[in-house]
């Protein structure tokens, strides 16, 4: 137990000083990794914990990003204040979209999520309601401001993003060790048995979508502020596939797996930039190979432990 704490402590220390040793390009790569890590963590709730095949997660990401972009450029509301709003809009959108389809069987749900992702993207391109800026997107999004400090350089974004990663990791870890987290796993393992044990499976399926979407929406806000320009191109099906791949390859349902997965899937192609075109090829092949040889992913989750405390039994840390 203490050993894991030492490890985490060391990692946090490393993370804190890392940007000082790297040039801005690599810091920006780490920023990308951080964003994808949060996206993967959010999708992990839906795919990893609840076991629902969601291949349209980019749509929720987009809703958050565009919410921030529109409200900031139209009403000059500071972006960081909009984070909860973005979470809200993405969450509500997920609720609206998932409600009629939540009872669908696995593969059908998968296809519908692809359809939803595409419809959102097409709607953005077609400038629906006249506010999305069409295929050019929206530009001129303000930088985040934290207590008077404008966050502009990759270095500064690094701390913002990775703090958010840290917060997400902590909160989602707590969520795993709770009634909610267990309910998601029960419905993934055997929906009929879960329902027969008294768990409202429809509610939890929907909840996983909403929470996962809300988180993706919030990170979409940060993405918009970082890029200052967003367009529908950043939210294609292949983005959804990328996030999905991180979850699966990293290890469904595992928080360390999500982080490692993000590092590998986003970081490795950067390391092998020379082989730019072959990257995707290798990526595709890697997915096939992983499924054949190690279905559970690189860092599969460890079982939850419940250990005795002074007052009897309670939850433990895995």
């Amino acid at each position, binding site marked *: 137990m203490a050993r894991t704490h030492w490890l985490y402590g060391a990692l946090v220390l490393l993370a804190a000083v890392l940007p000082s040793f790297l040039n801005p390009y690599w810091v920006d790569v780490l920023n990308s990794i951080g964003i994808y890590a949060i996206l993967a963590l959010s999708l992990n709730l839906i795919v990893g914990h609840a076991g629902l095949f969601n291949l349209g997660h980019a749509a929720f990401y987009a809703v958050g990003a565009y919410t921030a972009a529109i409200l900031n450029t139209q009403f000059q509301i500071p972006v960081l204040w909009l984070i909860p709003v973005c979470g809200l809009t993405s969450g509500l959108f997920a609720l609206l979209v998932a409600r009629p389809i939540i009872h669908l069987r696995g593969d059908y749900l998968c296809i519908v999520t692809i359809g939803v992702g595409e419809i959102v993207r097409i709607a953005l391109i077609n400038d629906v309601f006249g506010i999305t800026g069409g295929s050019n997107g929206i530009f001129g999004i303000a930088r985040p401001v934290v207590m008077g400090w404008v966050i502009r350089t990759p270095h500064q974004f690094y701390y913002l993003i990775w703090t958010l990663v840290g917060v997400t990791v902590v909160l989602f870890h707590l969520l795993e060790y709770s009634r909610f987290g267990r309910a998601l796993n029960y419905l993934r393992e055997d929906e009929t048995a879960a329902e027969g044990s008294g768990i409202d499976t429809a509610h939890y399926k929907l909840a996983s979508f909403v929470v996962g979407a809300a988180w993706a929406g919030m990170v979409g806000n940060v993405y918009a502020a970082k890029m200052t320009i967003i367009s529908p191109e950043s939210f294609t099906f292949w983005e959804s596939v990328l996030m999905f791949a991180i979850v699966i390859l990293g290890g469904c349902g595992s928080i360390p797996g999500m982080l490692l997965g993000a590092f590998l899937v986003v970081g490795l192609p950067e390391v092998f930039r020379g082989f730019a075109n072959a990257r995707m090829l290798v990526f595709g092949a890697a997915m096939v190979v992983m499924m054949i040889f190690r279905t559970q992913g690189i860092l599969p989750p460890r079982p939850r432990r419940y250990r005795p405390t002074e007052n009897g*039994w309670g939850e433990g840390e895995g």
Partner: protein
Amino acid sequence: MSLLSVSRLSKNFGGLSAVSNLTFVVPGGSVVGLIGPNGAGKTTVFNLITGIYRPDQGEILFNGSSIIGLPTHRIVARGIARTFQTIRLFQNLSTLENVLAGYHCQMKTGLFGSLLHTGRQRREERQAVSIALKTLKFVGLEGQAEQTARNLSYGNQRLLEIARALATGPQLLILDEPAGGMNEQETTRLVELIRSIRDRGITILLIEHDMSLVMRVCEKIVVMEYGLKIAEGSPEEIKGDPRVVEAYLGTDHEW
């Protein structure tokens, strides 16, 4: 008044009549057995009671009110818990967590409590684990809490399913072939367990092919064949009923 009352229940699948005009009651505090040859419609009856299927005709009253049309998890909340004919445990989760699944509906913590681990949430978790462990002890699995469900022996898996069902705090426990795959010793332990459950005030309705168990533990038996009820009565009455003997029991059975 009876705890569970099934009247003129019917269910068709395509052209096949799985359950036909079935009527019986389960008095509170009793142990009732539902027997019959394979394909008689017994599990279908259970699925109708627990809301997995919707009846085409008829009424199901629990504690006097109709439960037709309610989603399964609400029926569980009302007080009916079940085990499955083919074991449906959460195989990759621990024994303890399987029981905790049953206790889920008795807990209140929602999303925010789960996310933030409030004091109330932690108290509820501790209590849940404590109750789950007590339930495991009650069925005889107390040493196995940390074991992954799929590693349990077949007989123990059946006991775990019962523990999970008990954790929901039911008034009526529905057991679908609880002795399936059990040997003599395990079956005897099961008989004792069923009696202990009954002594706690929980009513039991069970499907079983093991006649020795049925005759030992049931106060009343309902016999089905081809979706119809062909007999109902005490074990003595059923043993002697010619229709039952012809359809199902045969004449050389010893019990």
